């Protein structure tokens, strides 16, 4: 492989992946004691934990929506999750990510069932290595299902991008730093509706179209892993059998 090349002539990337190949993903549901639902993911070198509390009464009261539940997400990076220590607490980047993830989940949670309530979703990035917002959204979707929050579907997320002029799936850290574009998306797998889409960089319409197709396909593969994690979880706890069924059938 040429020096400095991110994708070689055979379409193989530095870490050995093909252009449309995901990094390895490990997902586990039900990992915390206090939360109503929780999940843990390792995606490439990312490690993210998600917890869900609710539906519970929203505070302060003037924030309540009398017709439906709020879905409030908090994406947070641990100070030691990145090479240069990050100051504790929300910065502008994490506020924006929290907002777009909240909006994505608001589309699928059956919010009308819980007026005045809030569903709080906490995502803690414990180790970060490119693509944390997709990783966080994916694990949070499992935590929401684990908490028994009624949803139209389990949403799935993945990024595509461009490096060395090639459209590639699921950028790793070097590809993110040196590539030309990064496009995180999230979809409702059952309908292929797009609920999260961001992009910056430089990409043509044609590249965008082919990358989007690649990422949508990958989201479906990821959705299978999310459902597997929930099945493993529920095979252990038989009393939540109904919930499993509801989710597998996509009520």
């Amino acid at each position, binding site marked *: 492989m040429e020096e400095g090349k991110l994708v070689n002539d055979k379409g193989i990337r530095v870490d050995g992946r093909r252009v449309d190949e995901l990094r390895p993903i490990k997902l586990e549901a039900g990992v915390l004691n206090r939360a109503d639902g929780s999940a843990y993911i390792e995606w490439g070198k990312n490690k993210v934990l998600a917890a869900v509390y609710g539906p519970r009464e929203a505070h302060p009261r003037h*924030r309540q*929506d009398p017709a439906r539940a709020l879905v409030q997400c908090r994406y947070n990076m641990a100070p030691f999750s990145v090479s240069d220590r990050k100051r504790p607490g929300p910065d*502008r*980047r994490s*506020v*924006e990510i*929290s*907002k*777009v993830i909240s*909006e994505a989940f*608001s*589309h699928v949670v059956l919010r009308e069932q819980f007026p005045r309530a809030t569903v709080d979703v906490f995502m803690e990035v414990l180790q970060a290595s490119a693509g944390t917002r997709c990783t966080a959204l994916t694990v949070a979707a499992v935590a929401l299902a684990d908490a028994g929050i009624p949803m139209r579907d389990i949403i799935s997320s993945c990024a595509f991008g461009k490096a060395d002029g090639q459209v590639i799936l699921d950028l790793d850290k070097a590809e993110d730093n040196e590539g030309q574009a990064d*496009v995180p998306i999230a979809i*409702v797998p059952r*309908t*292929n*509706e*797009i*609920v*999260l*889409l*961001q*992009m*910056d*960089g*430089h*990409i*043509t*319409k044609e590249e*965008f*179209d082919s990358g*989007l197709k690649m990422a*949508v396909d990958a989201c479906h593969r990821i959705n299978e892993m999310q459902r597997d994690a929930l099945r493993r979880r529920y095979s252990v706890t038989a009393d939540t059998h109904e919930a499993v069924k509801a989710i597998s059938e996509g009520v």
Partner: protein
Amino acid sequence: MKDVVSELLRDHIYKMAASGKRVDGRAPEEYREIKVRKGYAGNAEGSARVDLGETEVLVGVKMILGEPYPDRPKEGSIVTTMELIPMASPTFEAGPPREKAIELARVVDRGIRESKAIDLGKLCIIEGEKVWIVFIDVHVLDYGGNLFDASSFGALAALTNAVVPASKINGEDYPLEVEHHPISITATKIKDVIVFDASLDEDRVADARLTIATDENGHIRAMQKGLKGSFTLDEVDYVVKTARKLADEIRPKVVG
């Protein structure tokens, strides 16, 4: 924080839009009048006051001497701030930037930064020691819908108006070079209908928002989907195509 918007308004706007009409008489892909006054703020290195229909923003560019980031010793930097000052709307509040203002500022910032409109390398004065820091401060004066585009137009226009104050370091002032001209176009979805350049009322009843910035070559430079609704793949395709077309029409008005 919450506009209490009657469902009636929502239905009215939707029904009109569904039949290809809009409350203010525009076509679905039609932008409101755009007026750009450059050089308005005399103490700024560059500035532009942008009217987009009833929306008005004032953007000032200040260039300050500073140190580069340790990991990027040869580059200056860009900082974009957005103040949704309470003057602009009965529902904005003063104080620390809230979610909405942060998203706006970051999308405007990425539109400029990631499109490489400004070559950060050219902002370096002495490697590792002294660089120009470009502050793009967006001041929303009147909020009449579609802040994303009005702010982006203002930021680009103010940059094309900016003069590097090199006389501060015993050089000669010169115009800031703007290498690309990304134009942000925002589609707004109400139920299953899409309109562009939402008016205030359309903004208030919107289900989803998709902002696309494309450059003078028709290449995509930034995207941001917002709000709680979704877009189908076909809708995304339609919005991107339309954004390229509209951007080409609007670019001359902004860049001048």
